[in-house]
């Protein structure tokens, strides 16, 4: 009897240690950004492709100049409401962050203090970003105007308010493999990089499972809007019959083939996509047409 108790205690301790280990935040490797220098002009394009402005400017800010990234955008989800933080270069934002800090946030979802970020920041996509692009993005973010607006805490109930638990979520959902395993041409590779890593299209256009992870088996098949209002359309070729030219032109102009104009969050996406070189929009279109 006493032996059994001892065994149970040992098992409990092992489980606790394993749990602690499994939920531990894991930053990216220290040397990932060694020797890289940021180019703010190139970073501006990464910023545009990533649609960072869409979530990180104040709600209703439709200005077109350098973005004031004071945050405050509310993402309503079944787990609670996430409120985008200030990421401007100020004490209230990400002023003073190193490139490694930015890389950890984007590619590992880990804060400079070593805590998990919630996947409202789409690091399951950004984990595939090129370290050079992260470095360039950092250089660009440093050129933007500072905002002193304090970031607001997310509005989450138990148990989702326990950040440590995100370690388990990451174990399930941090998959660095490409969804489109074979990208046979440089154009497809570029399109895959833009769609699956930087522009994080799947975050809205792919449905999620009960735990909020993307269902890769339904990649780009459309999804209910997590806010509960309306549906986000499928952009998989089995559901969307636009030509590659139609898709590229939509991303440039906001016009559908019927010359309806984009609305909702896609207006922000188009504003960014329109700034990219035409080859990038063509690459995204080629990627979408190539999905199996």
């Amino acid at each position, binding site marked *: 009897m006493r032996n059994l108790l001892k065994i149970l205690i040992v098992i409990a301790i092992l489980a606790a240690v394993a749990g602690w280990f499994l939920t531990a935040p894991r930053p990216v490797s220290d040397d990932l950004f060694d020797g890289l220098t940021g180019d703010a002009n190139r970073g501006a394009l990464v910023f545009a492709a990533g649609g960072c402005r869409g979530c990180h400017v104040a709600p209703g800010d*439709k200005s077109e100049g350098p973005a004031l990234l004071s945050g405050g955008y509310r993402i309503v989800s079944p787990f609670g409401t996430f409120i985008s933080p200030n990421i401007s270069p100020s004490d209230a934002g990400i002023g003073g962050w190193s490139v490694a800090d930015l890389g950890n946030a984007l590619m590992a979802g880990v804060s400079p203090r070593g805590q998990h970020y919630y996947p409202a920041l789409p690091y399951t996509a950004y984990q595939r970003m090129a370290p050079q692009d992260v470095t360039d993005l950092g250089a660009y973010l440093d050129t933007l105007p500072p905002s002193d607006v304090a970031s607001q805490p997310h509005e989450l109930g138990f148990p989702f308010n326990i950040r440590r638990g995100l370690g388990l979520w990451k174990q399930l959902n941090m998959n660095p493999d490409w969804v489109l395993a074979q990208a046979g041409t440089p154009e497809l590779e570029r399109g895959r990089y833009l769609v699956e890593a930087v522009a994080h299209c799947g975050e809205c256009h792919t449905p999620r499972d009960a735990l909020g992870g993307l269902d890769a088996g339904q990649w780009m098949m459309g999804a209910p*809007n997590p806010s509960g*209002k*309306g*549906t986000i*359309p499928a952009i998989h070729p089995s559901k969307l019959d636009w030509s590659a*030219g139609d898709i590229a*032109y939509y991303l440039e*102009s*906001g*016009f559908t083939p*019927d*010359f*309806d*104009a*984009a*609305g*909702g*969050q896609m*207006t*922000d996406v*188009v*504003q960014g996509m*329109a700034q990219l070189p035409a080859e990038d929009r063509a690459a995204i279109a080629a990627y979408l047409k190539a999905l199996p």
Partner: protein
Amino acid sequence: MKTGITLATGLAFAATLGTAALSDGHADKAALAAVKARQATMQLYAFNLGILGGMAKGAIEYNADAASAAATNLASLSSMNQMAMWPPGTDNGALGDATAALPAIWNDGGKVMEAGMSLATASAAMAEAAGGGLDGLRGAIGAVGKSCGGCHDTYRKPK
């Protein structure tokens, strides 16, 4: 005397109710007619934009006369006085699936007028540019698209 006043008030009240009830059915019809008119306007925008956009993206061969005609149409349409097509109470909350127009159109202090003006301005610039060559048309269509998106973003219910 007191009874007289009460009676008069009561009658007036009943009359008001009656009018409201009567005009309700009428209002429905009028509301739906307004919705139809503005949706038809949107379709005319889209039809003329289809010609301009088709040329811009290379799906249709550029033709100065056709471009100019479409752009002039667009400019005329967007400078039309549309007030009667947007009566209060014809939003998506009141009429459901008949319209995607959000209540914000009527209750954000007239900002929607600015959005409408930006379409008129961009279309006027397009009307100037469209007949003068494909590059001019391409240069002008971005602002038109932006003005469409500027309105849809805030005032149209997402699909």
